[in-house]
Structures are given as C-alpha cells and as structure tokens.
C-alpha cells in the first residue's frame, strides 16, 4: 500500500497536455469575476516597516480594485499564453506556474482584505503569526518525514502532538521549568512512537490502523487524565511557564523578513535547527542514504547489510521526539495550559503538508508554512471584521492537498515501500 499515486497512469509524453492550461483559464476567468469585477472600493493600508528601527516607511496604500484588475488581466494573459503554447506544441516555461499562482494568491488576498470593515494591518505581524502558528505542523511533518522516508506510515502524528502537549504542560507546571517541559514533550512523542513501532514493526499490524487506533488511545488517555488529574489541580499541574521569545540582534533588523523570522519564540529557532539538521542528515549522511534506501527498497538495503527493522524503529522513535517538540507549542508557547483534544487535527494537516511537500524537508516546511499562513489569515480576517466566511478559507489547505495528491497540481509520489512491513526471509 503506497500513500500516493500508483505509477500506472502516466500519460504518453507526446500527447498535448491540456489539463494545466484549462485549469489556468478557468481560474483566471473566475478570479476576474471575483477579484476584478466585485472588488471592494476601499483602500488597504499595509504596514511594511514595523519593528525595524532604522527604516521609516509609510504603510503601503493598495486599492483592491486596481490590484484586482491588474492581477486578473495578468492571469488571463498567462492562461491565454498557456493555451496558445499548448495548441502550437511549444513548451510552457517553468516560470509560468509560479507567476500564475503568485498573482492568483495575492489577488485573492487583496480581495479578502478589502472586504473587511477596517482594512488596515501590518504585513510583519501577519507573517510573524503565520510562522508561529505553523510550528506544530512543521515539527509534525518532520516527524512524519522521518517515519515515511524509512517506510513506516505515520498517521499517529496527531497523537504524538497531543501527548507531547500534555506531558509538556504536566512536567512544565510541576517543575516550573519550560525546558524540562520541552524535554517531556519529546518523551511524550517518543512514547507514542514506541507503540507505533512495537505494533507495526514487531507485531506487523497494518501501519495505518495502528496509527489511527493510537490516536484514539492518546485522545482518550489525555482527555481522561486531564479531567481527572489536571483539571482539579490546575494551579499545580496545569499552568506551565512559557518558553521565552527573543530578538536576534542585527538579523532582526532586515526589513520585513527580520522581524518575521528573527524576532520569534525560541521554539521557532529550534525549528530552523531541526529542519536544517534533518535536511542535511537525510541528503548528506550515511544514515540518510540508508533511510532513503530502506524506504524505497528494503530488500535491496537488507542485502547490502542494512538492518532494516532496527533502522526503521530508530527512525520512528526519533520522529516521535521531533513531533513531540511540536506538541510543546500548544502548552508552552500558544497558551500555558492543556485542554482535551487541543491539537484539533493539526497532526493530520502536518501529514497533508508532508505529502503536499513531496516528502522532502524543504517542501514539507514550505507547505506547513502555507497552511500556517492560511490559519493565521483566518484569525486576522475575522479580527478585521471580514464578510468572507472563515470556514471557506479554512477549507483551502484541505482542498489544495486533495488537488496535490490527485495530481492536479503536479504529482506527489511517496517512498515506494511506505506502509509495507518488512519480514526478513
């Protein structure tokens, strides 16, 4: 069982591929009607130089009507070019897709911001919040990545986040030390991973089933312990100190990006470190090569002397610790107490980010950031008093993921051996 497309349906190379040009045309026409014709007649005030002391810029004044029309016309032109190029058999340049999606996204964003009752906001705080909110999804998707690249499906990210959040709150409150809380979060995630590894590697239970059932178990366990132990003694057991936030000198003074990336909670800096390490280890070390080999073709790796199941078990445990760190976000950064089921399905979104990011660290990071942005946008829009229903915005990441796995926005292919237990002959 692979978690993505099976390779059977690849189209012959010579056939004209009308799929993308048609998608572009439909989207361009739709957006012309929405963000062009129905653009709100206000002015958006967008602050860009916040928190950067040496720069003094007035907020940008953007007219949704003007920008909506500009973006729509550019999209129409790009769609027309794509249709023309496909008809005449020319290759469509690689620049086209990103340009199109950029104008589509910014056009939609301008329209949505313009539809609020008070369209005045700071670009820095919008992006800063997006980075912060994507923390659990980034750690979660890294946990998923470590598992899946070695061939184990990790549906249990949700459980790893949840137990991580729970143990961080408990230990953090008992010791009054957020760092010990963070360690406990890693231990919590590790515990969930241990269950996953025990049942999927030792007892050969279907990995997806173990993952789903373990999530139910963790949800029940943390909910039970919360109601029975944490809640009655909330002041002692459920009021954790927060992890500190601090500014990195010099770097934080880069316009826009500085305050967004380098004036953050310490967990964000840890995230940079973890993602960087995973990227390096996966692509440049012996361990990484073996992990990838075991995920693609365990038998071949075994033949060359790699201990497949030992490597997989190690990776699953490591993944739990990494995902558990993401769980610490909920109780040591976002708020300072645990609540039942507070991860609210973010583990599943992390899984989606992993797939959308095509099982690579950088891809998963970008996808999780995108989902974090859409999450923060919902909050910001509802604070600004939008008329766009936030539920429809909330659907976007899921729709995008469906498009991604269904191959409508490029095909996403996972490690070949993911989901199959390995039994040595």
């Amino acid at each position: 069982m692979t978690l993505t497309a099976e390779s059977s349906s690849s189209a012959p190379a010579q056939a004209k591929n009308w799929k993308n040009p048609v998608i572009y045309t439909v989207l361009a026409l739709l957006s012309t009607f929405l963000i062009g014709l129905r653009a709100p007649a206000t002015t958006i005030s967008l602050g860009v130089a916040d928190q950067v002391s040496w720069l003094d810029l007035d907020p940008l004044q953007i007219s949704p009507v003007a920008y909506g029309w500009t973006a729509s016309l550019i999209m129409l032109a790009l769609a027309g070019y794509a249709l023309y190029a496909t008809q005449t058999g020319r290759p469509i340049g690689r620049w086209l897709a990103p340009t199109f999606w950029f104008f589509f996204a910014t056009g939609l964003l301008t329209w949505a911001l313009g539809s609020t009752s008070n369209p005045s906001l700071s670009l820095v705080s919008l992006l800063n919040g997006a980075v912060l909110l994507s923390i659990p999804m980034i750690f979660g998707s890294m946990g998923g990545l470590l598992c899946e690249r070695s061939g184990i499906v990790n549906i249990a990210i949700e459980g790893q986040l949840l137990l991580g959040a729970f143990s961080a709150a408990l230990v953090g409150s008992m010791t009054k030390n957020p760092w010990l809380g963070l360690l406990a979060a890693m231990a919590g995630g590790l515990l969930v991973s241990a269950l996953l590894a025990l049942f999927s590697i030792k007892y050969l239970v279907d990995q997806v089933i173990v993952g789903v059932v373990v999530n139910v178990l963790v949800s029940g366990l943390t909910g039970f312990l919360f109601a029975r132990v944490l809640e009655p003694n909330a002041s002692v057991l459920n009021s954790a100190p927060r992890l500190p936030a601090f500014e990195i000198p010099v770097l934080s003074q880069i316009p826009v990006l500085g305050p967004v990336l380098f004036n953050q909670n310490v967990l964000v800096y840890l995230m940079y470190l973890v993602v960087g390490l995973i990227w390096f280890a996966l692509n440049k070390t012996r361990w990484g090569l073996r992990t990838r080999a075991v995920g693609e073709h365990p038998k071949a790796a075994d033949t060359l002397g790699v201990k497949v199941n030992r490597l997989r078990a190690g990776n699953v445990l490591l993944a739990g610790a990494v995902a558990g760190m993401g769980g610490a976000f909920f109780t040591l950064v976002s708020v300072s107490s645990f609540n039942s089921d507070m991860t609210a399905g973010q583990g599943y979104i992390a899984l989606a980010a992993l797939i959308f990011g095509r099982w690579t660290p950088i891809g998963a990071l970008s996808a999780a950031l995108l989902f974090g942005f859409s999450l923060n946008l919902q909050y910001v829009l509802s604070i600004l008093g939008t008329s766009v229903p936030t539920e429809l915005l909330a659907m976007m990441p899921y729709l995008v993921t469906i498009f991604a796995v269904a191959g409508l926005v490029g095909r996403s292919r996972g490690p070949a051996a993911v989901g199959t237990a390995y039994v040595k002959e």
Partner: protein
Amino acid sequence: MSETQKNTPAPQPSTWAKIAGGNIGLSIGAVLASFILGGLLIAATDPATQKAASYFFARPTDTLVAGWTAATEAYMALFQGAFYNPAGRSFAQQIRPITETLTVATPLIFAGLAVALSFRAGLFNIGAQGQVILGALVSGWVAINAGLPAAATIPLIILGGIIGGGIWGGIIGLLKAKTGAHEVILSIMMNYIAANLLVYLLKTPLLQREGSSNPISEQLGADAVYPLLLGNPFRLHLGFIIALLAVLFVSWLLNRSTLGFRLRAVGANPNAATTAGISVSNSYIIVMAISGALAGLAGSAQVAGTEKVISTGIAGSLGFDAITVALLGRSTPWGTFWAALLFGAFRAGGVTMQVSTGTDIDIVLVLQALIVLFIAAPPLVRAIFRLPNPQGVPHKKSARKSKKAQEA
C-alpha cells in the same frame, strides 16, 4: 500496487486475516486485558487510592482495597448505565439503559458497516466522519423543508442520507480510481472539508435557525422525525430497524451477490482480480459510494432520530469510533453489529459512570483503542495470558525454527 509489494518474499497474513483468524479466547483475552489496564488507570487516578498510597508501606492493603473499589465501582456504573438499572423505580426505568445502548449503537452500526465494507474491498475509509456529516446535512435539509406528511417525508430523509453520504464517499472512490491518490489522505481531507462545510451552512439562511446567531438549524417537525419504537420515555427510534436492515443488506451484498464477490476479490488481490476481468477502478468507485451511503444513513439517524436538530456536533466522533467498531467486528456485517452494540454500551454506560462515580467518559475511548490494538496483535495477547499458538501464526522465532527444521 507498488513493485516492492509484488516482490515481498513471504506474504504475511494481512491484519484482516489475523483479526478474522483469531479465536474466541483471543477476543476475550483482549477485552479482559483492556479492562485490567483501564481499571489500573482508574485506580491510579482515584483520589482515595492516592491518599491511601501515601502510607502504602505501612498498610499496603488500604491502597489495594481503595484502588479495587474505585475500579469496580466505575465498571459497575458502566454496566448499570449500559444494560440494567436495578435501582430504577419502575420497570421502564430499570430497562431504560439497554434501550439507550441500542439508541447510541444505531449510528455506530451504520458507520461501522461503512468502514467494514470498504475494508473488505481493500480500502481504508477513514472518511466516515465526513460522510456522516453530509448525510446529516442532506437529510436534515430535507426534513426541515419537505413539509409533507410523515409517510412521505421519512423515505425522503433516508434517501437524503444515502445521497449525501454516497456522493461524499463516491468522490473519494472516483479520485482513487482515476488518479491513484491514496484513499486515507483523501478521506482525511474530505472529513475536514465536510466539517467546515457543516459550520458554514449552519451559518447561512439555508439551514440557520431564524433569529439565531448560533450555528444551529430549526428543530425538526413532528412529521419529519423517525417514529419511536417503544413509545415516549425511550429514545429508541426507527433508525435501529433500518440499521438491522442495513446489516442484512451488507450481509447479502458481501456473501450472496456477484458485486460482493467482485469487491472481495479486489480486496483480496487487485492484480488477480484484474486478470480475472474485474474492473478494479469501478469496484473502488462503487464500494466507496455504498460505504458512503451507509455512513450517510448514520447521519440521518442522528438528525431525524436522536438529535432532531442539526448542530455542529451532529457527527460527534462517529467516524473514528466506526473504525474501531469495524476492526473489532472483524469486518463482517454481524460482527460489526455486535461490536457496535458493545461500543454503544460503553458510550451509554460511560455517561452514567461519569455522573455517578466521576470517572471521566474518555476512559471509554481508552478501552476501545486498547481492545482493537490487542485484537490486532494476537501474539501479544497470547504472551500476556500464556494462550497456546494454535496454527503457528508466523511468529519470528517459530518461523525461523521451522525453516531450520526444513533445511535439516
């Protein structure tokens, strides 16, 4: 399927085979082990037990007695809340718990059947949650707007559930069949889309109660709800009868019909099924549509039977409970039925347990998950209870030994 799978040397019995191949002893062992673990958890978190544990080395029996009392009291309350209440003043009050169990089990039967059916065709339908929501939305909309007598409205409500859930499940099957995308990911995403759609629609004039600012629909009229089976003090409704019919239907479909044979063939080995001339893609679409329709009926039962209103919590955690139900029921229709009754009893009894002993109802989730985990891993249960291994389910060491024996 992927290349590695074709080359995998020793075909392991699938989880389904393991679950189905287990014996009664294993099931009892699994339930017993789960209850023991759950009991330990209840005892360990019990304030009286913790107090007694502070002087454990002086008088250890106090701790054990307090722990034992806490666990057995909770389980007794669970039992009384699920089956029979001896303290009831009238006969009706005494048997009310068992009717509550059946009421709570009704949507679980539908949703469990949905998951079980997809399992048999080799698909993992995690999307029951979304399909329940869509079923509830469509049948709720029909119920509120039909304005017909009950005899005409109720069939329409049932049809609405079938259509709503069927389409939502069918989309997953279609995408899986046409693009090869994995149904687990698709169905998780469809769940979240459905959940957001539910909240969104409950805030639009289409469904929102007039004059309310909360996301909730109008109450269903008297002509638009399932009739009660046992009269007024009991909540048991027509949905339970429909659920029984659904069990019979799925049983017939899987075991007696050509379509069912095809679905099982695809589930057992898609490559062989293709060779035999069975269209795997079509089977995926059909099975997901039927599976979705069954889950949609759970939504109808929730709206028109139990809740009588559409709210944001209409589907609860039915979708995920359904997975544990289908796993415990070994993906057979009647197995699923009994598993749904058991978990329905847990749910109904859990409410009583929480009220009378203060033991949080979430312990029920722990029990459910533990039972399924234990049943999925027979060697673990055998190791705990020292049960014999009947026919050498390939355990690593024994497999190696038998191989050596062959070589010798």
